[in-house]
């Protein structure tokens, strides 16, 4: 199969944080100083990527209320605000991306991750793991059921706090469309104070990461819904010979 007539819209680096963003201190020693080398003519190695549509997902892989419960007979459920997080994965031309892998991870309601290096004061929740994954459907839609994560302090400035957020990883059709981002929650007063959010200079770029409260999709007497659409790079076909 030839991929020579396929390409992706060039990544607009102004829509992303720069590697060196000194307000986020860890980036200082982890950012390349040399310019990126532009490939000009991406090859099959960059234009293709893994297809996970045949991977077997577990029955609760996208349900964080159930996928780590310790004792189902005791009815154990995680602490916190029950929410549904959902949205559509589309490309920059609005084309839905079906059957693509969406992965997410998050802290529990107290702001603590189930990770051996997280030593925050807030306790682990015995019924909460904090990881989910699913494939988008035919229309590019994904859904997770979870609890709203808590904010937590972290060592950056003397008193830095992360706003509540869920890490989101999307594959898309190629390694060129690979994207890891974070969903924040509409209205959270910690968003404008966060040094990691501030790595982005353009307020519209920040808007792309803010999940919207969606009352229409919330479930009465059960859970609120937050909608978070993810846009990956657009795929172009070139129709004419380059001669």
């Amino acid at each position, binding site marked *: 199969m030839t991929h020579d007539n396929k390409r992706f819209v060039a990544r607009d680096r102004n829509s992303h944080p720069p590697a060196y963003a000194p307000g986020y201190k860890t980036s200082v020693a982890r950012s390349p100083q040399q310019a*990126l080398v532009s490939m000009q003519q991406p090859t099959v190695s960059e234009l293709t990527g893994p297809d996970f549509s045949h991977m077997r997902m577990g029955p609760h892989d996208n349900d964080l209320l159930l996928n780590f419960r310790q004792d189902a007979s005791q009815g154990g459920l995680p602490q916190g605000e029950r929410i549904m997080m959902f949205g559509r994965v589309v490309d920059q031309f609005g084309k839905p991306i079906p059957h693509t892998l969406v992965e997410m991870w998050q802290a529990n309601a107290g702001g603590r991750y189930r990770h051996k290096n997280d030593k925050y004061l807030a306790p682990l929740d015995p019924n909460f793991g904090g990881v989910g994954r699913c494939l988008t459907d035919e229309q590019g839609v994904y859904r997770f059921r979870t609890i709203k994560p808590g904010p937590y302090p972290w060592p950056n400035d003397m008193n830095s706090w992360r706003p509540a957020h869920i890490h989101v990883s999307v594959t898309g059709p190629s390694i060129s469309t690979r994207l890891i981002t974070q969903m924040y929650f509409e209205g959270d007063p910690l968003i404008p104070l966060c040094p990691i959010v501030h790595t982005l200079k353009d307020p519209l770029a920040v808007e792309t990461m803010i999940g919207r409260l969606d009352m229409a999709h919330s479930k009465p007497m059960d859970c609120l819904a937050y909608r978070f659409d993810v846009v990956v790079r657009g795929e172009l076909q070139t129709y004419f010979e380059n001669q």
Partner: protein
Amino acid sequence: MKQPNSQPTSDLMLRETASQTAGPYVHIGLALAAAGNPVRDEEIWNEMAKPDAEGEHIEVVGIVIDGNGDLVRDAFIEAWQADANGDYQADYDLSKPFNSFGRTATTFDRGSEWSLATIKPGAVKHPSGQLMAPHINLTLFARGVNIQLQTRLYFDDESEANAQCPVLSRIESPARRQTLIAKREEVDGKVRYRLDIRLQGEGETVFFDF
């Protein structure tokens, strides 16, 4: 009426969702065993080639070093490579002997190496029609890395192919090309290639935009 979180850049296009760092706890989401957490039935991990995969079986290892010369212990890396015949096996299926995609991470122990069990890839054609030297595309995420860093690993025993590779030749400085070339070692009769990734400063690895 509330607007969606996606943002138009013009009447014709949407802005790509912004990247954010994968953070220090990326492992709980994408590398569960490395976080010390239970794994699911199927996980995407670093055994790209099973023993019955066609081709020369190799291990690929390395460390990641920051601008102070310190180990980056929380890096998460994705690999994408052709099979021994130079074809990409995109359909990820753990029952197959070989998958073109793999994931690995540096570790919290002293050595802090990432590693992949794979086969040496075959040569793949460049759009110009020339052959590219055998290579593995690597994508690196970590705390402090705001958007993924994309590089390629080449092999030091392919010097002739490397010298003619149209992508390696895109790198103006010949000295910098060397930052992508993994060194062959033989350990207990097994072939291992080592590539250390330097994020910043002296010997900084070449990272690509594509």
